[in-house]
């Protein structure tokens, strides 16, 4: 049956070979996927970063060449960049804050049984299935006073002075994409938070009830601490995603009117494809990425401290 036993002299080597093979096995499972990710994400990323140190405008191929930090210096004095940066912060903060608040509420609602819950759940989760840009188009129409009752409704409750399109108002335009983003993203928060809620052992609540805790106290001292790790991770993922996502703005306002709703990713996109200035666009994108990395590290650091 066993060669190893028949021949003790050679019994060793097939063994060590087999052991090596076994040690290599996990790499075999991760390699194909990682290869794809590395080739399709990492390589272009490196190339993109290298663009940011070049003078690279598509219609001026002759002037292409290394330019050091020139693009970054230009960013520093670019008023649109600063405007886009503050808009990005505003766009990301409000989108994520509302998604979190509404998503948490929805998860709490869905965590308790009620008549028709399954149907309710699939209906309220539906926006997540809507392609992002389509939700942008959808809300664009909803803000159009000619084909939607929404502006009239907003005027009726006093948000607007008259039924008009907020997307063409420089003071309010950013709120158009923000509402679309909130609408689309609430289900994601609800799904992850619902999953976290379900993983809280129910006997904790029973014990708390026996100890005389009010529902609010139970929420404060059991639900919140249990949800916190999931909440921070979800906030992290979503913040980064929202901050990086130009689609809604591209579709709904194209950054206008007059850059009033310009955000960084959309500015990158338009710099690259309208002005065809790839060097500058790449520098902008690199700045965005560096800021997101710093933000993530900070958030994870805070999370680590809270966890202690």
């Amino acid at each position, binding site marked *: 049956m066993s060669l190893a036993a028949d021949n003790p002299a050679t019994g060793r080597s097939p063994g060590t070979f087999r052991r090596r093979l076994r040690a290599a096995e996990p790499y075999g499972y991760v390699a194909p996927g990682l290869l794809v990710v590395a080739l399709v994400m990492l390589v*272009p990323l490196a190339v993109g970063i290298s663009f940011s140190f070049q003078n690279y405008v598509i219609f001026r191929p002759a002037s292409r060449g290394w330019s050091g930090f020139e693009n970054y210096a230009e960013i520093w004095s670019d008023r649109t960049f600063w405007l886009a940066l503050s808009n990005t912060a505003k766009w990301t903060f409000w989108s994520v804050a509302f998604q979190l608040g509404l998503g948490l509420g929805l998860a709490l609602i869905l965590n308790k049984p*009620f008549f028709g819950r399954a149907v309710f759940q699939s209906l309220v989760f539906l926006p997540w*299935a809507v392609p992002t840009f389509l939700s942008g188009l959808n*809300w664009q129409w909803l803000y159009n006073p000619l084909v939607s009752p929404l502006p009239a409704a907003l005027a009726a409750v006093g948000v607007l002075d008259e039924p008009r399109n907020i997307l063409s108002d420089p003071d309010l335009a950013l709120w158009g994409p923000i509402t679309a983003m909130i609408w689309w993203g609430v289900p994601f928060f609800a799904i992850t938070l619902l999953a976290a809620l*379900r*993983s809280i052992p129910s006997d904790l609540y029973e014990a708390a009830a026996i100890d005389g805790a009010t529902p609010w106290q139970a929420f404060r001292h059991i639900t919140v601490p249990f949800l916190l790790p999931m909440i921070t991770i979800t906030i992290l993922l979503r913040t980064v995603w929202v901050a*990086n996502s130009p689609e809604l703005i591209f579709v709904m306002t194209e950054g206008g009117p007059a850059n009033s709703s310009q955000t960084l990713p959309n500015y990158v996109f338009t710099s690259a494809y309208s002005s065809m200035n790839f060097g500058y666009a790449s520098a902008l994108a690199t700045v965005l990425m560096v800021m*997101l990395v710093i933000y993530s590290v900070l958030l994870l650091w805070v999370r680590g401290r809270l966890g202690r």
Partner: protein
Amino acid sequence: MRAVTGTALWLVRLLYLAFALFPLLWLLRIALTPDEILYREGTTLWPSRTTLANFAYVIEESPFPVFFANTIVVALGTAAAVTLLAAGIGYAFSRFRFRGKSALMVFLVITQLFPIVMVITPLYQLLAPIGLVDTRIGLILVFTAFNLPFAAFLMHSFYEGIPAELEQAAMIDGCTRFQALVRIVLPLMLPGIGATVGFVFTAAWSELLFSLMLITSESKKTFAVGLLGFVGKSGVDWGQMMAAATLALIPPAIFFTLIQKYLVGGLTAGAVKA
């Protein structure tokens, strides 16, 4: 008191429902409204007459059926590729201890920080010489890479829900590790696989920027690009556009409705560790 809270709860639930569904309802309403009365009755909740003409136009005369077919091919191809690759990564993460594992996990998280807008141009330049620009395969490749990290975490969390002893029992019963994976683990993973397929399908179905930049010929456009083309044209026919949009919603909506239960379940299994 209890009755009051009960009513208040229902009120809150209905508000959520209205917020989630009203935009979708409006989409459908405009698609069903005949052109002549679209602006005249623009703000009434339901038009005085409805028509299926817009849907008929989209299906029979517009290029949308081609866009649809392209999108389905790309989304299914992406979902299949991502699920297969994520199954491997999740399996290794869940069942093996190996050098570099935590570094790899961190790397996958970090990929989520990359601005997509930054890689589009370099990617175009890399794909063009090998003939992958303006092809569905190229699009599938790109979508696969961008959806893989999250899908790998999702799969990982589903594997964690299946006790390793099951595979060990199977290996003692006579399976190789691979047989144990195929005959024991994968059948139990079906909900997780379904959730991952559905999740990726929905994401790929919705993608806009890459499709916009990497696809140029009309015959290969995905519907997202097609729909955006509609907007660009002068004299947009809102009704037809809404009809196309409504149709475009159906596949991801079906997929997503089918999988959401498993998505919650899978994340619950993983949440214990998060």
